[in-house]
């Protein structure tokens, strides 16, 4: 049986986050992804694309982001490729104490990455040449 997957490439700008989310949304509906998993995939994708474009300094129509989503027997995998600045999200996953200091929330993607960290099973980042490669694995409990 063919594994369901989504593969898209789009210009790297804030507006296209919605394009990617719409594509993923449609993919999830067509593949009957359970509601909670569906929404978590959307949130994860939103957070990572925001980080790539806003903090990876890649709000640039001449650049492209590749995004894929696929289901394996064990998990969901989200993959992102971009040519932004070196940005390993794992380096920013330390607990940020923004409850005591709201200004902490302004730090690089802190709040979004905190959400990401709670939703995923593993994160694998590497940089090859001028490209960033990020893979998220997400395991869900059967509903």
């Amino acid at each position, binding site marked *: 049986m063919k594994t369901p997957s989504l593969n898209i490439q789009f210009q790297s700008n804030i507006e296209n*986050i*919605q394009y990617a*989310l719409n594509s993923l949304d*449609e993919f999830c509906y067509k593949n009957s992804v359970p509601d*909670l998993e569906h929404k978590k995939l959307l949130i994860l994708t939103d957070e990572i694309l925001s980080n790539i474009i806003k903090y990876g300094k890649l709000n640039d129509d001449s650049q492209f982001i590749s995004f894929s989503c696929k289901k394996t027997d064990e998990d969901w995998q989200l993959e992102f490729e971009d040519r932004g600045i070196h940005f390993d999200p794992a380096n920013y996953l330390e607990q940020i104490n923004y409850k005591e200091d*709201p200004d902490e929330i302004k730090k690089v993607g802190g709040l979004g990455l905190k959400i990401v960290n709670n939703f995923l099973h593993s994160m694998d980042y590497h940089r090859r040449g001028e490209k960033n490669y990020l893979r998220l694995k997400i395991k869900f409990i059967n509903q």
Partner: protein
Amino acid sequence: MSYFQQMEITITNVDLIKIVHISGELNAATSSEAETKINQLIMGGNHKLIIDLDKLRYISSAGLRVFLIANKLNKKNPSGEIRICKLNDIVKEVFEISGFNLIFKCFEDSTAAQEGWS
């Protein structure tokens, strides 16, 4: 077929309270519009706000920031307060992960959220 649910904000009045109903998705693509509308309400002298999330599918950190910025703006008025109601499961989970359930009072519905406000 379009699966995307456009983010929409509607506002209803109960006495001096403004109830802000947000539907659709509050994410990186839609948060700017939401931020503008909510902040306009506050700058227009409305300091008792209830954010009703009954029709919200999901929220990301960009959406959370809308509430945080509005709260900071609203706190400049001594009686300013923002309350949140009708969080679905995924929104509630995001609030708990981020600690926003400790920053904002969250209620089952807008009637409960109005209690104590005359």
